[in-house]
């Protein structure tokens, strides 16, 4: 298989069939290092299936997902994370019972200590370096003053920002964002977009799954349009915007 030198994630000829339904057909994606790659498509286009195949939750019927030269298929979520892939969920997945600061410190431990290491001798309070790091990450997303709150008490937008901070602190090579603005108010959506723009320059590769085209145009370097389980268009935002097939897919779809 041939990769261009800077391809970090390669979804190669992936097919996924569920009893009779061809959910994904002939998907071939190359995500370049340091770029933001958006996958968009109307509801039911197969975006979630694709994401689940990428993170190893679903095994493809044929084809493979290769990250940094390693096949992801069949790997457990924590192994994929340890390889440098972080994920933001559609509904924020945080630790509601921990404080905001602890929420961010936890992934920092995973980054530093690996998938399993028991640290019992030194109290949490003595982990000054990690705490500073976590506070920086929180400051980054503008939540530093809320660090002692119970995470369960946050608003949905804040939960999303917290989750983003939890991913950013790990400095992943690849960040997967699953509909980062789904179900958000206009205001929260705007702050999230601003935040994503802010981190765009940091050089980490990002894959954004989104059904709302407008969200990604200002963020993405490259857009792939998914419809009916196939990629119908791919290219720079402006090129995709003008593509008639894309227009048709969106107008003829659920939108």
């Amino acid at each position, binding site marked *: 298989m041939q990769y261009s030198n800077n391809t970090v994630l390669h979804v190669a000829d992936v097919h996924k069939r569920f009893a009779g339904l061809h959910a994904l057909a002939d998907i071939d994606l190359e995500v370049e290092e340091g770029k933001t790659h958006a996958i968009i498509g109307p509801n039911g286009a197969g975006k979630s299936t694709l994401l689940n195949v990428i993170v190893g939750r679903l095994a493809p019927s044929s084809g493979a997902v290769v990250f940094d030269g390693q096949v992801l298929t069949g790997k457990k979520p924590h192994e994929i994370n340890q390889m440098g892939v972080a994920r933001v969920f559609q509904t924020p997945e945080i630790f509601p019972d921990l404080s905001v600061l602890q929420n961010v410190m936890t*992934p920092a431990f995973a980054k530093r200590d690996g998938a399993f290491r028991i640290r019992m001798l030194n109290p949490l309070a003595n982990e000054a370096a990690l705490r500073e790091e976590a506070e920086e990450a929180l400051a980054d997303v503008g939540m530093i003053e809320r660090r002692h709150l119970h995470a369960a008490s946050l608003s949905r937008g804040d939960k999303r920002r917290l989750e983003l901070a939890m991913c950013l602190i790990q400095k992943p090579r690849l960040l997967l964002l699953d509909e980062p603005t789904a179900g958000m108010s206009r205001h929260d959506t705007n702050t999230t977009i601003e935040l994503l723009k802010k981190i765009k320059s940091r050089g980490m590769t990002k894959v954004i799954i989104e059904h709302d085209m407008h969200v990604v145009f200002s963020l993405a370097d490259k857009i792939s349009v998914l419809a009916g389980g196939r990629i119908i268009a791919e290219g720079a935002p402006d090129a995709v915007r003008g593509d008639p097939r894309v227009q048709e897919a969106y107008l003829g779809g659920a939108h």
Partner: protein
Amino acid sequence: MNVLRLPRQDVILFAVFAIVVLTMPIWLTPFGAAYPGLMQKFAIFAIFAVGFNILFGLTGYLSFGHAAFLGVGSYTAVWSFKLFTMDAIPALIFAVLMSGVFALGIGFVSLRRSGIYFAILTLAFAQMSYNLAYSVLTPITNGETALQLTNNDPRVIDMMFMERTAGLPSPSIFGQPLGGIGGFYLCAVLLLVAFFIAQKVFASPFGMMLRAIKSNQTRMSYTGFNTRPYALTAFVISGMYAGLAGGLLAVTDPLAGAERMEWTASGEVVLMTILGGVGTLVGPVIGAWLIKYLENIFSAFNEGMLHATFSWLPDGVEDIVVAVTSKFVGEGWHLTLGLVFVLIVVFLPGGIMEGVRRIRSAVANRRDNRRTRFSTSAAE
């Protein structure tokens, strides 16, 4: 010394706790509970509950079979007495190790499932241990009769140093007998050690990982943690606590019966933990003390004592009051326990510690609502 280091508020808590435990013979006297048998139980079951809480309180895995490890600890300790020496130290070490091995095996299998399936798996394992201890394993457990010391036990290490005496030997520590109050102080010191280790767990990054598992297991794996070994470690630690408690039961009274492993015994430690406050350090201890106290003192109340208590009431009223209250004490104390338990789960899911916290925050309303470390579980 990192090993001994704790945050300051934990050091204070430990100091207070140590004073409370070590002065039990004094402050329990007015409650009629200052006799060695009961005080030993207080310390032993507090260890059991504190250990159970490391699993249930931190990771949220509800085990309904923890008494199995208590039983394993007891059997191991008695066998150590029989085979090697009457000294308590090797007996306790073996008890902790053996129950740790059992916990590793059972935990490895059970933790493949979560929620109610996990509870049923642990329950099934405990019931299997219990039934086997009663039947096929009789050569090891002496079945219904319970494993006891006999005069012809080999006791190889003891026999190297002393002559066989006529009577049954009793457990000792460095040659000091462990009857009565001595036995209590051994249990009390070990309770302090156990409590300290629990404090270390609670305050450590490891403790935070366990809380994170309880809070959101999915996020935990996508954050790069392999959650199962964490949960398994917690399971083994709490199994070893149970083993220590079981070993101490055998040290204070060298007998091991299978009923220690029955699922109702597992249910009891759940009750203790919930009653006191899941996920708190002190709660399980209070729960254990309360239940053991009620069991020993409440259950010994009889009608005569009730009549004496209510003798100031008019005759007819007295009879009615006695008739009603007698249903809740003596033989009926389980009824009281059940009612209290239901009320706690309904109105105060965080147990007694949540009640204390509510009262405290109501009193000291001026202080800002900073979250204390006692608050992990309840707020949901």
